[in-house]
């Protein structure tokens, strides 16, 4: 790889000089030089307003500094992959984007996250509204022990958008038809409709692992999110189920902003448009187009990680 390659395949709006970067290329122990240039390596720019803009995000779990001054902009309607070794803070970062970390008492969060330019870490933010707009899919499939239909309709029912209770039915004001349509639409979006359309009233726990995970995605879609956060969504699944989930993620990126945490670099390379690499210590080391990250990373540490020398 040559230095000119590096700068040309870089960002759309290169702002930095080449010298510090070429220096790092020659260093094998990257320590100090990394810190000097990290800001530029993570400064991935793209046309249009970012969907999510994160600035100087620090997370502490008690004395543990889990996330160290992370800043990154996430473009809309695309797949952003977060990779890195275990314990590098990528899941913590993901959980900050819909304030799921609020549920952990010991967690302290500093910094700013803006959703469409609106700060989510400020007084008076409606967590219900935030989580409706920023949905989440977890590592292990976690459908409720209810029927498939009830799983999908759970969110909208609880938000009062669907009225199918007994009283509503008695008053003739129930939304059963709307619910039916929503369930079908969500399941179709999650590519699960054809497999379960004849057994919507069966318990969701009777589905296979891959189907359960797609059900969880459909459940998340039913609420009508704009951003979908996925925390290693395929790590508990077999290769066939994994490839279905991956296809689904690529389809979803046409309408949704998808942020995926993954352990598998091949997966990140296959599905994502841009990739952010977190390394030990909870810092974001490099963030760029996926092709750039995997073919020609700026940081020596990232290259070591990707080629398997570290982490």
């Amino acid at each position, binding site marked *: 790889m040559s230095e000119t390659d590096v700068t040309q395949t870089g960002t759309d709006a290169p702002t930095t000089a080449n010298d510090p970067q070429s220096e790092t290329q020659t260093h094998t122990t990257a320590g100090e030089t990394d810190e000097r240039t990290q800001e530029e390596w993570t400064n991935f720019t793209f046309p249009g307003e970012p969907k999510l803009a994160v600035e100087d995000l620090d997370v502490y779990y008690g004395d543990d500094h889990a996330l160290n001054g992370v800043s990154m902009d996430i473009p809309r309607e695309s797949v952003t992959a977060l990779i890195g070794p275990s314990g590098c803070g990528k899941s913590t970062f993901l959980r900050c984007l*819909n304030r*799921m970390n609020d*549920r952990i*008492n010991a967690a302290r969060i500093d910094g700013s996250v803006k959703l469409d330019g609106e700060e989510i870490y400020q007084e008076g933010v409606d*967590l*219900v*509204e*935030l*989580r*409706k707009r920023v*949905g*989440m899919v*977890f590592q*292990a499939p*976690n*459908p*409720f*022990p209810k029927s498939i239909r009830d799983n999908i309709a*759970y*969110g909208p029912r*609880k*938000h009062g958008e669907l009225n199918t209770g007994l009283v509503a039915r008695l008053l003739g004001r129930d939304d059963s038809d709307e619910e039916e349509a929503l369930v079908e639409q969500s399941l179709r979006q999650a590519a699960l409709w054809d497999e379960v359309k004849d057994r919507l009233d*069966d*318990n969701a*726990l*009777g589905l296979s692992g891959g189907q359960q995970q797609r059900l*969880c995605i459909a*459940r*998340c879609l039913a*609420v009508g999110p704009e951003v979908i956060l996925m925390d290693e969504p395929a790590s508990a699944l077999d290769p066939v189920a994994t490839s279905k989930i991956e296809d689904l993620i690529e389809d979803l990126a046409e309408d949704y902003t998808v942020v995926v945490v993954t352990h598998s670099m091949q997966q990140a390379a296959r599905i994502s448009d841009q990739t952010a690499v977190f390394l030990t210590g909870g810092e974001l080391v490099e963030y760029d187009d996926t092709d750039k990250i995997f073919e020609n990373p700026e940081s020596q540490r990232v290259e070591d990680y990707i080629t398997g020398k570290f982490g």
Partner: protein
Amino acid sequence: MSFDTERSSTDTLVSGDSSTRELVSGGLVALSFASFTVGLLALFQYLPADTPVAGTTVSTLLGAALTVVGTGVVVLGAASYGGLFETEPGHTGGLASAVFVGALWFAVGGLVGAQTLGLSTAWPVVALLTGGVGAAVALVAREDLGVTLSAGLFVLLSGLVVVTGLVGPGWRWGPENFSVVLTGAVGVPVIALFAGLVGAWTAARVYGGFGPQGRQTGAYVLVGTNAAGMLALLVSVVGFIAVRGFGPMTEGIKYGLFWGPWTWFNPPLVDTWVILEGPIVWFYWPFVMEGYTTVGSGIDGILPAIVGTVWLVVGAVALAVPLGVGAALFLTEYADEGRFTSLVEISTNGLWSTPSIVYGLFGLAFFVPRLGNTNSLLAGQLVLGFMLLPLVVITSRESLKSVPDEYRDASAALGVSKWETIKSVVLPASLPGVITGIILGIGRIAGETAPILLVTTSDPFPAEVAGVIQGGFRFTSAFPFVAVPDVNLVQSSSALPYQLFAVIGAGLGENLDFAWGTALVLLLVVMSFYAVGVASRIYFRRKLDQ
């Protein structure tokens, strides 16, 4: 120890036909098990020890069986030691086995010593001596000799004592300074139980060919016999009550059919007290449909007590379940784990172990004066409800904790509030566990006598059912906020356990039948509550995983 690769004939993967050793020792296990079973039956008087069987008695047969088992085990052990069988004995019988047989021989030595030397300082010495020798033999000698010798001789000795009639049906033992007199009716079955268990264990070790396999077989038989024994004990207890109570309970049942529609206008002559009367059938069961008759004629019934018990349980559950589940929800879902929750946990555990008479006294001092100054169903319901409360809290909490956090996370990520999550995900998932707790609690409060005696009952044998539904009580604005009309929940009532206590306490010799009938009905009432609980648990569990 050498690790030669030469294969001995015992190393084959598939063993051939069962050997003589397996046949004989298997037979001995079966014989021991039979002795154990007969001993259990004899203890519960289903088959008393002096029953004549084929010219001899059960007792003698038991003794003979144990003698055979003891001799057989010792002979098999000696044969194995002599190399007649292929076994894999260890170098020692093992410490646990040695302690076990040591304890057996300690008991033997103590009993024999106490018989011959009197209850002086000498018998413990004898006991220690025999116990020590028994343990030492099992510990020092090679496994096939040590275990079979010490345990087998114990079985042999027990068998000989019984077969010779030294301890027979007519045997009585009343050591000085002891107020207890042991008779053969108890002594023989107890010996048969113990020796049968030991015999089965030892013979099973021989069956397994000693060594690890032998220990495994021995432990399996020991634990299995134990479990079977416990089950038999439970069945015996229930059977004991059922056999004695069934007659009195079903006395005077009458039932019949109306033959066709024309009898609708002209029913056959039936006594005036027909209670259940349909167009086709009529059914009369005086023991559970009538009150206690004040006149000498007729059958004394226990309907008031049944109704009292049912109302007490229903009221207590209705009070304790919402409060208890609510408290458990707060502690698990809202309060942070810390000093406060552990304090609450300790105090609920303490409350659950508080003796019921203490609750009763509290009820007598607190509720009775405030609820019409009379013993009443309501006071009983409150006291029993408070007794049930800690158990509901404890079990609900455990059940709520076992609901996976993934459900809560998933719900929160959908933007659903905590309370909605609890209502529609957490609580349904924990319901089966909550119901299990309630089932356990009902067993306790339905049989509770002491607090009922203090706060609910007055006349143990009422002729009339306490008017619970007809009256109804009123809340008022003045202290104590409850108005007391004549007939309402604030009226004393009887209850089954209290009635049982009263019958026995009154010393009504000829009326002990009445007590057995009452006991059986109490058992049935508790069981029907169980049935409701178990059925609803199955329903909710099926709803969760179909």
